[in-house]
């Protein structure tokens, strides 16, 4: 707390300094409204982002006369609501950190500015699947991708060896591995199906080829209950039903303990898993290994995403151009990306930054797997595109409630998926969106 106060006041002092120097050195008239002294506010939750902003404020920002102040926020749904409320009052900050799935909601509430003119040329820096989430498949650009979370398979190397299990490369093998483990060690689980983590389920569905929200004309099409997602739901529902895997939610003290004691021997997670494992299972450091996500068709390299966020400029910003300039620097400049990796611990969305630099060494927790990030970058290349709509929150709540009761009673996941689809469509219709059946 104290540190943050210091950081904020330093930033404020720097802002004042930048303003003064900006005024002093203004020769005037070389470029029309280039980027005069601007002071920007940035709402974000990534840790250490203020330090990255400091690099900007001391370097390129000082030259351009643009000062950025980071205001730390809660992550996720709460921030989306807060931004929308602030925008209604005309008081949204210049820049916001937003998860990809929140972008349509924010655009639909007219919060985000189109920055395609200022930053559209950054397209080549990112994988297509990720870029498309920031454009919503249109000509506009609503945000610059910051980090991504390609899904991977994490497993306990030592326990796999002990129980004679091989790393599954397909989902069929995954199911066989789960059953084999149950047979050899009935008190252990390969993994768990968590009804709390809609994002993971969405990522698994993306891998299978699902596109939950698409547009045709001026209508949305919701395809949550499509064959691809049904396949994923049936697969996990079947494993829970036969008792091959656990049905407890993730991110609970009990789950931490299961990871730490080896009761759960594998975890389908994203590239950021080492951070979670470091705190959840400190005693198993160096015993885990990472492999590509099992595939639906052998030999493919497709994965989905779990998490990931972007930097967006709001319509309330009086310095959209300056804000877009900073957003572009933050997410494409090598120095900024290196600082983001180091200070915020993110996995950058920019392709060039996914190897080398700070990511040339494996995370400490995975020191037994030196090629961690080389392999991660290979996996990330196969990231399937995600298709988000304006009411992802509603779909996610419906997932939590319906899949929770299905997982609890170990019953068929099919009806839960249908309920999720129905709730999402009903909400869109209620709000007045055009919806095609």
């Amino acid at each position, binding site marked *: 707390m104290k540190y943050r106060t210091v950081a904020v006041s330093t930033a404020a002092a720097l802002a004042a300094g930048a303003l003064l120097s900006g005024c002093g050195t203004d020769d005037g008239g070389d470029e029309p409204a280039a980027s005069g002294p601007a002071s920007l506010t940035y709402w974000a939750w990534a840790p250490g982002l203020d330090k990255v902003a400091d690099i900007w404020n001391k370097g390129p920002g000082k030259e351009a006369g643009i000062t950025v102040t980071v205001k730390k926020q809660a992550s996720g*749904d*709460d921030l*989306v*609501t807060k931004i*929308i409320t602030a925008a209604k009052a005309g008081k949204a900050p210049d820049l916001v950190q937003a998860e990809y799935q929140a972008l*349509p*909601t924010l*655009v*639909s*509430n*007219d919060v985000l500015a189109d920055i395609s003119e200022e930053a559209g040329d950054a397209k080549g820096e990112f994988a297509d699947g990720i870029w498309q989430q920031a454009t*919503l498949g*249109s000509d506009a650009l609503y945000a610059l991708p910051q980090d991504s979370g390609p899904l991977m398979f994490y497993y306990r190397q030592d326990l796999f060896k002990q129980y004679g299990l091989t790393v599954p490369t397909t989902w069929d093998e995954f199911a066989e591995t789960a059953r084999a483990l149950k047979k050899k060690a009935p008190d252990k689980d390969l993994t768990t199906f968590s*009804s*709390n983590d809609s994002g993971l389920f969405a990522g698994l569905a993306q891998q299978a080829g699902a596109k939950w929200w698409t*547009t045709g004309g*001026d*209508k*949305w099409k919701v395809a949550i209950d499509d064959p691809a997602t049904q396949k994923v739901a049936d697969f996990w529902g079947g494993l829970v039903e036969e008792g091959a895997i656990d*049905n*407890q*939610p993730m*991110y*609970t*003290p*009990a789950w931490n*303990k*299961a990871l730490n004691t080896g*009761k759960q021997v594998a975890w389908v997670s994203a590239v950021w898993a080492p951070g979670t494992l470091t705190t959840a299972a400190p005693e198993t450091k160096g015993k885990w290994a990472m492999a590509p996500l099992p595939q639906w068709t052998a030999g493919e390299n497709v994965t989905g995403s779990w998490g990931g966020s972007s930097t967006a400029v709001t319509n309330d910003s009086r310095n959209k151009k300056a804000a877009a300039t900073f957003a572009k620097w933050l997410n494409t400049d090598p120095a900024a990306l290196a600082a983001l990796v180091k200070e915020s611990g993110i996995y950058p969305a920019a392709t060039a930054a996914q190897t080398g630099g700070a990511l040339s060494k494996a995370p400490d927790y995975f020191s037994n797997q030196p090629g961690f990030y080389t392999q991660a970058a290979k996996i990330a290349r196969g990231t399937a595109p995600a298709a988000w709509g*304006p*009411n992802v*929150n*509603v779909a996610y*709540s419906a997932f*939590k*409630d319906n899949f*929770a*009761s299905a*997982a*609890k009673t170990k019953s068929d996941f099919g009806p839960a998926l249908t309920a999720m689809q129905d709730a999402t469509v009903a*909400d869109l219709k209620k*709000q*007045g*969106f*055009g919806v095609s059946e």
Partner: protein
Amino acid sequence: MTRTPRRKAYGVKSAPYAFLVPAAVLFLLFFALPIGYALHLSFRRTEVKGLGLGKGARDEIWAGLANYTDALSDSELLTGALRILGYGAIVVPVMLGLALLFALLLDTDGLRLRGFTRLAIFLPYAIPGVIAALMWGFLYLPDVSPFLYLLDAVGLPQPDLLDGGPLYLSLANIAVWGGTGFNMIVIYTSLRAIPAEIFEAARLDGCSQLQIALRIKIPMVAPSLILTFFFSIIATLQVFSEPTTLKPLTNSLSTTWSPLMKVYQDAFVNNDIHAAAAQAVIIAVATLALSFGFLKAANSRTKQGDSR
């Protein structure tokens, strides 16, 4: 001569209003205005056109009673209300029963360590609800709970405390643990206010301690029992932080388990403040009706008792 009384009358007339102004301003600003705004929101809704992307695609329009009919026909809100009725049926009697029992025990003559005991029972009330729920959550979770570990060690079956019927007991337990101390203090304070000569008279008439408690103390603290019951009903209808904190730990608590959780979900997750406002108004009206209905019923009974 005539001037002084006139000025006096003028001053007397305006003085009460002047004294009322600060309270009235605060009431208007922080009570009437937000309630009025919530009512206003509850009669409106946003309407989206087409894809709903970009400028002017979203309008706020008059919705009439649509939000109210939606809320009242929403089965989730109703089942939520039923759930907290079940929860309240455990919490209120157990908590008030224990509070009364502890207050009577504390009031017994010749009790040692009275101050310490009172503080010890009261202490959980000082612990914030979320912290208490987190702590109990740890104690309920199968793999980390010391209770379940002990049960397992002696070979007894481990109940799942976060599922089905036990879930209600687990939630109620948190409320009872946190609320008993406060209610005990309220009842105990009114016990101490009973004049000592009444007990003396009772003792002279040959009353035992138990009879004194049943025949004199409990009837004489009836007003504070009514008060604590009143508070408990309101707290039950507004239960939010305990189930919300326990929610991530189990598959058995939905995001809309209690009515207030549904309001929160609509307002802050689904971004539908209009539906949330309508539900909040309904809950407020129901709370008012229930609690004042109870107060009225209790008052009329006491009055009947007086006239008898």
